[in-house]
């Protein structure tokens, strides 16, 4: 029971925190289900559920369930106390977010009187009880339920994003005209979201019961099928996703491109470059200077300027790489950070204003032309960016499995020993900087053309930090990790606009949570190890033939 009290109090504090930083109120306008249930409620309920779950996990008997209910009840009580406090005392001088609207939100519009208290306690206890009950489900069932709830919340949140994708009747069925999901819509989404993982489980069970018959070839076929579906999905995406989603995915793509570039430097070669934005900026400004008639230096077309812009970043990658060759770890990080700032200050400076546009930046940057067709919509840029990402991905895979890739990994693991193995530190590091820079530069050039203008503010330190953070989030050194990280760190905040203000808060929480629960990242490189093992098994099944071939050669 002491555990229940402790978790209840922690939950209560978390609820206070969320309320007082303003997160709860920010989401009050997001209606998830009907008119009444907003995302704020969902956040509070999720808190109660988590607390109940945590208690239930610690104590696995009936007292655990009671404890879970008690913990939930405590969260409810904390909410009511806060509501009462905010309603009676004006806290706004200290906590801006303690607005008069907050008590209503916290008490589910039941007021701070006895009714509100009763409702909060009841809801808290019930949800806490359910959270504790979750621990009684088998792991797969629990995961299915939680995933289903999360999907339902996500669908509710993404209403505006989904509306151009699905035909009007479907949307009319799923959603109420002004609010969130309709009741039948909620039921459908929940049922679908529950059915898919359960069906998968059933299929998996069946598959494992005939594991013998599920040959390597069948697995391979499945992998090919997954790949085809993936390609079709990616290729058709802008056709059905609408303007907004295409725009978001363009930015995600640009970050993936940068992530893949930095992954070569940081993930493969282990060089922490905190000034990666410099390459993005150099690519973008090269594109701007070479094509914009505004500056009047050059008026090249997009296609002529693109290779020059990439070449410029390669050169700058080498120039930045040269002085930092001998530096390691923290020193390298600080120095590259400085380079990133130098580039930003240079483009901002009055001194270079006639050439780079100064604080106003440069506009009227060229659009790519394909014969008579001009690429100028985000849906069309999508393909350009997709091709860029594909190229960078291909290059990354080839480099990783090559001699230079092995040299990078050796340098990452132990620079001295790498040299003692005969690895040329200078060329290996410069190659990492140059290829990494090329990808960042490509991203920058595409960015400049996409938004049609460059301003110095777009190239702040935050971009570098974002790219490093997305690598950490996805799993350093892992290529799928880059994509997952970019989707989570760049894509999600675009979709959940309210998060924008709390972006850094969420970053902090997410990164700390990652370090504790998934230190290797969301999609760590180990999957590669597993692939290798599979390949080895394939080799075993083929081995007799090979052995025969070898012995024949010998004879």
């Amino acid at each position, binding site marked *: 029971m002491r555990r229940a009290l402790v978790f209840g109090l922690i939950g209560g504090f978390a609820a206070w925190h969320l309320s007082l930083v303003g997160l709860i109120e920010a989401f009050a306008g997001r209606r998830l289900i009907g008119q009444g249930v907003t995302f704020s409620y969902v956040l509070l309920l999720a808190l109660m559920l988590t607390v109940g779950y945590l208690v239930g996990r610690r104590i696995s008997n009936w007292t655990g369930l009671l404890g879970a209910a008690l913990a939930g009840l405590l969260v409810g009580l904390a909410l009511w106390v806060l509501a009462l406090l905010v309603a009676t005392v004006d806290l706004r001088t200290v906590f801006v977010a303690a607005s008069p609207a907050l008590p209503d939100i916290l008490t589910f519009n039941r007021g701070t009187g006895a009714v509100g208290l009763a409702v909060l306690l009841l809801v808290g206890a019930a949800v806490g009880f359910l959270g504790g009950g979750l621990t009684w489900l088998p792991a797969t069932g629990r995961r299915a339920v939680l995933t289903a709830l999360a999907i339902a919340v996500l669908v509710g949140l993404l209403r505006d994003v989904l509306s151009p994708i699905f035909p009007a009747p479907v949307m009319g069925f799923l959603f109420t005209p002004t609010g969130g999901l309709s009741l039948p819509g909620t039921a459908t989404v929940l049922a679908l979201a529950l059915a898919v993982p359960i069906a998968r489980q059933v299929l998996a069970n069946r598959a494992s019961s005939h594991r013998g018959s599920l040959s390597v070839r069948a697995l391979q076929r499945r992998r090919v099928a997954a790949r085809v579906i993936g390609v079709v999905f990616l290729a058709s995406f802008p056709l059905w996703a609408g303007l907004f989603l295409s725009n978001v995915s363009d930015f995600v793509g640009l970050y993936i491109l940068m992530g893949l570039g930095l992954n070569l430097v940081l993930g493969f070669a282990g060089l922490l470059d905190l000034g990666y934005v410099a390459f993005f900026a150099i690519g973008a400004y090269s594109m701007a200077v070479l094509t914009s008639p505004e500056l009047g230096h050059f008026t090249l077309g997009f296609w002529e300027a693109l290779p020059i812009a990439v070449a410029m970043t390669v050169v700058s990658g080498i120039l930045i790489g040269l002085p930092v060759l001998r530096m390691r770890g923290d020193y390298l990080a600080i120095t590259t950070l400085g380079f990133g700032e130098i580039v930003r200050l240079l483009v901002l400076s009055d001194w270079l204003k006639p050439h780079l546009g100064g604080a106003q930046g440069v506009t009227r940057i060229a659009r790519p032309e394909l014969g008579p067709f001009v690429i100028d919509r985000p849906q069309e840029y999508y393909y350009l960016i997709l091709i860029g990402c594909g190229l960078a991905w291909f290059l990354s895979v080839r480099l990783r499995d090559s*001699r230079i890739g*092995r*040299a990078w*990994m*050796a340098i990452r*693991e*132990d620079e*001295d*020993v*790498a*040299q*003692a*193995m*005969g*690895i*040329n*530190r*200078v060329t290996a590091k410069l190659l990492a900087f140059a290829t990494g820079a090329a990808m960042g530069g490509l991203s920058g050039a595409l960015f400049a053309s996409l938004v049609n203008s460059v301003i110095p503010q777009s190239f702040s330190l935050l971009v570098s930090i974002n790219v490093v953070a997305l690598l950490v989030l996805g799993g350093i050194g892992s290529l799928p990790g880059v994509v997952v990280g970019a989707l989570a760190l760049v894509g999600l905040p675009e979709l959940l606009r309210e998060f924008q203000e709390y972006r850094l808060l969420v970053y902090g929480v997410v990164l700390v949570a990652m370090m504790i629960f998934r230190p290797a990242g969301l999609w760590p490189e180990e999957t590669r190890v597993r692939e*290798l*093992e599979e390949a*080895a098994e394939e080799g075993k099944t083929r081995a007799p033939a090979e052995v025969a071939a070898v012995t024949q050669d010998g004879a």
Partner: protein
Amino acid sequence: MPVLELESVHVYYGPIHALRGVSLTVERGEIVTLLGANGAGKTTTLRSISGLIRPARGRIALEGRNIVGLPPHEIVKLGVGHVPEGRRIFPRLSVEENLALGAFTITDRQEIRRRLEEVLQLFPRLAERRRQQGGTLSGGEQQMLAIGRALMMQPRIMLLDEPSMGLAPVLVESIFEVIQRLNQRGTTILLVEQNARMALEVAHRGYVLETGSIVLEGPAAELAHDPKVQAAYLGARE
């Protein structure tokens, strides 16, 4: 012509004069051991041979060719295999990947395969763990891996820096057995050791280094009986 010859090599770390004119030779097929207390300059000697430190003065010749000033990767190509102190294997790479990196200077994949199998035959323990991450091996196995990795480049001379450091006595024995076996197969070895007793048992000749200078040299058996060596490094009582 000796495989390796150092002629009055001086090394400075800033104002510190770490090597004060070290001269030594290693002939083909020998095991030569370099003894000395902590900070005497043993590791510095090895690091300047493999090019990780550049000597201020002096000459280091590999089969007659002066290699002072060459970058480390060039020196590796000329046939110096350095097994650094403290079992510095690549912990996150597999045993096979570690070994393959040892043959980095070789581009022929088939040749790398062949050498890999050869080394794995020499170290059956490693063969059992070929797909395991290097960091998960035991101390003795890691040392075997470090030695095996240097063997991959088929060096003309192998520099071994404290191979017995931090190992259990049984493992120390087996490491020295390995060293002897390698030597019998024809590998020339320069061995830096704190465990003077074992080192003098396997070595042909030895040098004693004290604060950056060679103070004693001679056949291993003679050194083992030298009263000064006995007092300082073999722990003999009066």
